């Protein structure tokens, strides 16, 4: 693969130089800033740096109190806790999905604003919900005099309080147009669970059968409980550095081959032009416009599974199969299996079984695989470097959120 940096492909001037992650679990009742600092220091050390080297800071979605557990830590808290001396920082919700914050960081180092950016995403949704379930943290939990504004005015009055309803409607349309079945879509959940069994940090590791999947309760048709990711507490951090730093690392860097950030359709859950796909369609198309690599070069895929249908859409949008062909492509699950599959998928267990770390968990896992740190779940690729995969794709977000990265590792 080319290591040249053509004009305009800013992303090749950046690398992922380190990753870190806090304790991950259900209802661990730790301060979200405490979790964030644990992940941040882990990532900084992994990149061979100290906090004094960090001169950029980026996060998604920034600090916000609603819904509870969705964030709770923004750039300000981390900046101050580590007494960072920053040349650039950015936090915010309005970006191409959770990875938009990482793309911002890539832009910042590529344009010379800074050298090393600490990027992080922290959730504590499991503790925030306590024993009261998800309904306690949706807008619907507000009751009383609450009036729905902005986008929520079009859905909340109808009891459509959750993305499970909005994504459920997209899945139903896909099933209707293409004949996709629950048995086919369920392979995403089954594969995630099988992989989670090999990930000591995963939340749900007990085996799941197709019968288990088909017989569990419905949440919002055609999505059942096991199509929905599991709220978790945890923080994930990555360090984005200037490409010149790659040679100084104690391990190979992950090069950023291409980014996908496009949203060419309407930015809406229910007004998007084609409800059998979503914003990720445009982000994925853009990714391949920026590289000579093709889907056939990808050796491991880490694709967002807030709901399993979103992963199916990522697989189609990224061209691993055609639009509408995701169901038959997934049939039986052999293609996406960790052992022997042409495209091992969500190798850590995804958000469905490893926990909803909200996008960043997939980027962490892609680097883990590229760097050969997967332990029992390490992808062994016959063409790879020392058996490790050389090219990974990461996609995060669903509905009107979508962003993706193509990463390569060509180091020793």
């Amino acid at each position: 693969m080319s290591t040249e940096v053509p004009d305009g492909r800013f992303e090749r001037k950046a690398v992922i130089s380190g990753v870190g992650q806090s304790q991950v679990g259900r209802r661990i009742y730790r301060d979200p800033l405490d979790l964030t600092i644990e992940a941040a220091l882990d990532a900084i050390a992994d990149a061979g740096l100290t906090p004094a080297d960090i001169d950029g800071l980026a996060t998604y979605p920034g600090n916000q109190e609603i819904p509870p557990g969705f964030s709770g830590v923004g750039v300000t808290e981390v900046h101050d806790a580590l007494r960072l001396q920053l040349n650039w920082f950015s936090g915010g919700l309005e970006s191409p999905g959770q990875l938009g914050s990482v793309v911002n960081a890539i832009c910042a180092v590529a344009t010379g604003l800074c050298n090393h950016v600490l990027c992080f995403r922290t959730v504590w949704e499991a503790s925030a919900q306590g024993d009261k379930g998800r309904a306690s943290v949706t807008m619907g939990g507000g009751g009383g005099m609450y009036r729905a504004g902005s986008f929520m005015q079009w859905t909340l009055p109808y009891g459509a309080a959750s993305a499970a309803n909005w994504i459920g409607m997209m899945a139903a349309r896909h099933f209707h147009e293409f004949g996709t079945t629950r048995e086919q879509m369920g392979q995403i959940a089954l594969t995630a669970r099988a992989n989670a069994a090999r990930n000591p940090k995963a939340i749900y590791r007990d085996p799941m059968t197709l019968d288990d999947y088909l017989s569990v309760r419905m949440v919002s048709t055609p999505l059942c409980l096991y199509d929905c990711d599991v709220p978790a507490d945890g923080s994930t951090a990555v360090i984005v550095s200037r490409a010149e730093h790659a040679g100084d690392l104690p391990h190979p860097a992950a090069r950023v081959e291409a980014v996908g950030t496009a949203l060419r359709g309407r930015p809406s859950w229910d007004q998007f032009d084609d409800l059998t796909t979503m914003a990720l369609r445009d982000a994925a198309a853009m990714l391949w416009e920026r590289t000579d690599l093709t889907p056939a070069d990808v050796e491991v895929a880490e694709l967002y599974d807030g709901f399993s249908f979103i992963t199916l859409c990522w697989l189609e949008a990224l061209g691993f199969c055609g639009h509408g062909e995701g169901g038959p492509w997934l049939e039986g699950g052999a293609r996406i299996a960790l052992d022997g599959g042409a495209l091992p998928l969500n190798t850590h267990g995804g958000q469905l079984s490893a926990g909803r770390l909200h996008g960043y968990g997939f980027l962490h896992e892609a680097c883990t695989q590229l760097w050969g740190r997967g332990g029992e779940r390490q992808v062994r690729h016959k063409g790879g470097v020392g058996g490790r995969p050389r090219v990974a794709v990461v996609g995060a977000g669903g509905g009107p959120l979508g962003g993706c990265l193509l990463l390569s590792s060509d180091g020793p």
Partner: protein
Amino acid sequence: MSGAASPGEAVTEPFRILPKVTPENEHFWRGGAEGELRFLRCRACRTWIHPPAPVCPACYGRDVAPEAASGRAVVHTFTVNHQPWIPTFDPPYVVAIVELPEQAGLRLTTNIVGVDPDDVWIGMPVRVRFEFRDDNGYQVWLPLFEPDPDVPSSAEEGA
């Protein structure tokens, strides 16, 4: 459309979170008082606009004003929600995106009512039925949809 609801007919169950009515969306949330399902429409090129915006997305004209649609629609997709999200708003219930015949892509999210959830299908002809809500004088008319008795249909010929 005809048959305006009178204030005495307010529905109180189940509990619904009501939309925040503003000058920009009032035509939509209170058009039901006159039995009309209203959307903004461009006076120049006649494009329907939803959600409301002060500009036509087709010609960028600024002369947009509310206009009544027929109230007929087709179920574009739907989900049967089984999860309790909102107190007293008890599942199962049908959340749908319906598309209006006035313009390709003119859609809204709603509930399909007056039919068993198991009998809803993609392509089903439906028509608007306003549900009048009065929360201590704060009034909205929610456009719900029910099977359209004027359109003979079946799942076999639909979609």
